[in-house]
């Protein structure tokens, strides 16, 4: 192993959180190196209008995602089963390369509800201890919404999020989300133009007494120049967002918001195709001294650094902690330990509607084009007597109609032959969908650890995922989906098919890349891996960013909260940690 010159900071992974932290720490005058195991990617060279709208290549063969042959996880539903590797991605799609998941996302950019962050104490106070499901591990985040608000704002203005505020400094705004937490000002750009689905959804939900508002979108409704001076272009509604890089500079990503400035910063350097093996520790195990990584030639390097930032995808952050011996691994038999605990996911559902007389043209869409209702989100509604914790947003979205994957036909239609062909033709443009995105709570037997059998290409144990949808989530999804059917009926569908989320969780159909937990934040080192600044309790010069910090998942896409927490951690490092390096920011 060859040893490189010391840096102030080494960042593992150059996606959203790595780019945000890299920029903030470079601005503080530090020398920063980011190690990214995937390739360099940029709009001009990698996401070309002449090649980007290729469903087979990007959405079916998964070109932008990490190859399972390079890294995957093993999966099972319960601890008594034998986990097997996910050999081809299905349920979720971890990103790869510079930009990470910020390249291939749809752009739904949410703030969690204030009551999502203190969920345990909030529900306990409102409903009593009896509301919590069996074997739950639901915890407060250790941070309040008011503390996080300025950082949500900062991330939204970095991205230029298109939306309509619902609550500015406590004043409810017409057309916005009346259930959202307060915000200091409106969104940086106005909402996107809406499609037929959204027009019908808005009318239907309004008639039903709900409160529709535009889904906050990282797709540009107009040109926008962010505070770093980086400009994005208006979205053209091409319908190739999720699983694709945007060829049009219209979807907020590290590439379109921050890398053009960061890459030219004299304090910054990125090394691509370099896979970090582990965090190196001092002999007493109290301080990280850097990381080791393997480059594309197979050469191993030591990169010494004073500060180590884990900014990989949620799964890989947890795995690096386990490899490095940072934090006590979670033990399902005792419930003790913190690294790997509280793995959670998202419980989504849909209601398909088949119409006679409407042309939805759903191929003209954007990743986050939609109208939403939060009437059944989080604790925005009364859970008394409902026997579940959590909720979901209800969406009418139009984000694509790519024909290999989006060809709904009514149940009972054959899968092939002339009858299939006719039904496919008749329904392709005359059907639409209402969806819900639901919370998933944390449970004692849903967790991440290292697999005893399967190894990655470098001989390291794969991460093992033990997860299932529990009765609490099935009841939540059934309740919310039942609220979606009348919406679809009011929209005018002739035939309606409702699909609430049900277990067992399967690795096969795509569901969502909203994996959370495993290195959760909190106010107690016995029950969390990191403090509210995402600093590890045990090793103060290691910070772990991203959705791995979520103690359970809310009914929203994670990126807005991931970005806000990264800015929050960066401020704490700049304002507090660097004055007294190596010290915990929160006393245990």
């Amino acid at each position, binding site marked *: 192993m060859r040893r490189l010159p010391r840096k102030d900071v080494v960042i593992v992974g150059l996606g959203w959180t790595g780019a945000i932290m890299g920029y903030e720490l470079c601005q503080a005058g530090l020398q920063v190196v980011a190690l990214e195991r995937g*390739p360099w*990617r*940029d709009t*001009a*060279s*990698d996401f070309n209008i002449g*090649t980007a*709208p*290729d*469903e*087979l290549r990007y959405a079916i*063969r998964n070109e932008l995602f990490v*190859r399972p*042959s*390079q890294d995957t996880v093993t*999966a*099972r*539903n319960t601890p008594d089963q*034998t986990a*097997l*590797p*996910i*050999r*081809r991605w299905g349920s979720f799609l971890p990103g790869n390369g510079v930009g990470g998941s910020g390249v291939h996302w749809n752009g739904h950019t949410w703030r969690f509800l204030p009551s999502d962050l203190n969920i345990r104490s909030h529900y306990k106070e409102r409903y009593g201890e009896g509301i919590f499901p069996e074997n739950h591990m639901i915890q407060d985040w250790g941070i309040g919404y008011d503390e996080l608000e300025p950082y949500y704002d900062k991330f939204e203005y970095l991205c230029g999020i298109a939306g309509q505020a619902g609550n500015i400094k406590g004043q409810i705004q017409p057309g916005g989300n009346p259930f959202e937490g307060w915000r200091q000002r409106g969104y940086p750009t106005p909402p996107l*133009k809406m*499609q*037929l689905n959204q027009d019908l959804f808005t009318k239907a939900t309004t008639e039903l007494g709900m409160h529709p508002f535009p889904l906050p979108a990282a797709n540009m409704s107009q040109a926008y120049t962010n505070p770093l001076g980086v400009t994005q272009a208006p979205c*053209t*509604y*091409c*319908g190739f967002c999720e699983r694709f890089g945007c060829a049009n500079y219209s979807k907020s990503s590290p590439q379109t918001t921050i890398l*053009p400035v960061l*890459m*030219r910063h004299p304090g910054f350097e*990125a*090394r691509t*195709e370099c*896979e970090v093996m582990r965090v190196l520790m001092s002999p007493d195990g109290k301080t990280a001294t850097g990381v080791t990584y393997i*480059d*594309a*030639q197979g050469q191993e390097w030591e990169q010494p650094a004073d500060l180590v930032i884990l900014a990989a995808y949620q799964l890989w952050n947890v795995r690096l902690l386990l490899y490095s011996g940072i934090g006590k691994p979670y033990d399902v038999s005792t419930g003790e330990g913190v690294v790997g605990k509280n793995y959670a996911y998202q419980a989504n559902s849909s209601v398909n509607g088949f119409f006679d007389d409407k*042309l939805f*043209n759903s191929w*003209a869409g954007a990743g986050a084009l939609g109208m939403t209702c939060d009437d059944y989100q989080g604790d925005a509604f009364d859970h008394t007597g409902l026997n579940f914790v959590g909720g979901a947003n209800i969406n009418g979205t139009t984000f694509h*109609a*790519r024909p*290999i994957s989006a*060809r709904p036909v009514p149940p009972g239609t054959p*899968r*092939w*032959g002339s009858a299939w*062909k006719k039904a*496919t*033709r008749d329904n*392709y*443009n005359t059907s639409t969908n209402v969806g819900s995105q639901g919370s998933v709570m944390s449970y004692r037997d849903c967790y991440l650890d290292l697999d005893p*059998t399967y190894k990655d*290409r470098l001989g390291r144990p794969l991460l093992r995922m033990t997860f299932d949808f529990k009765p609490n989530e099935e009841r939540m999804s059934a309740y919310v989906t039942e609220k979606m059917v009348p919406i679809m009926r009011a929209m005018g569908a002739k035939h309606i098919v409702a699909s609430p989320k049900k277990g067992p969780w*399967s690795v*096969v159909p795509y569901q969502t890349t909203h994996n959370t937990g495993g290195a959760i934040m909190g106010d107690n080192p016995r029950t969390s891996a990191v403090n509210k600044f995402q600093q590890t309790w045990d090793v103060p010069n290691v910070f772990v960013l991203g959705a791995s910090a979520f103690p359970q998942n809310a009914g929203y896409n994670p990126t807005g909260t991931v970005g806000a927490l990264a800015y929050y951690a960066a401020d704490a490092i700049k304002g507090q940690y660097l004055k007294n390096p190596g010290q915990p920011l929160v006393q245990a």
Partner: protein
Amino acid sequence: MTTPRGTRRRFLFATTALMGLVGTATARTIEGLPWTSNEVYPPPEARPGPWLFLTADEGAAIEAIVDRLIPADELGPGGKEAGCAVFIDRQLAGPYGRADGVYMQGPFPPNPLPTQGFQSPLTPAQAYRKGLAGLAAHVARNFGGRKVPQLSPEELDRLLTALEKREANSPEFNGGEIFDLIHNNTMEGFFADPIYGGNRDMVAWKLIGFPGTRYDYRDVLAKTGTRYTMPPVSLLGRPEWRRVGARG
């Protein structure tokens, strides 16, 4: 025909696929904004012609099957004319057929849970070879010594229905598995961009009304709910854009 551009693209594609396994790719230190790296190119166009992976018998069987899965009828051409068999052959001859990028390390337990998904040690190319051999034997046994392409449309439909419903499965022959593979790849080929060899002349996109890769639909958002009348465009452009006398 291989253009210099195509050659370079293939080289880059191969490098990316093998990244980290052999020493062909180069780790890079990046300061400033590089203009090129993984320069992106369209895939090489798959054209009709001799099979690259399938044998003559296998190719004939696939052609017969894709033409029943997607029959030629009053709505338009069938799977064979649309190029679905060409698509499948070219996919099997390439990275997909080799299971590039798929996690293929053992052990492979015999009875995975249905929730654990794909757990076969066979690459798609190997699964086709084995499945089509099993299918040929099954057909010879059950249809008087004949081959798949010699069956009538009604007999083929009966065969495919039995495969789909797992009624033809035996210890030697997993008929359901080969049916699902062919069905899935046929649909991919029919609806994918024509550059991959299926969906010839965008027949599938014309059938359902998908405009393809037009990229800018701001005009559609200005008049929602109305019929879109512009013809589809693929990564290859439109057939009439090609020079008169040019191939394809």
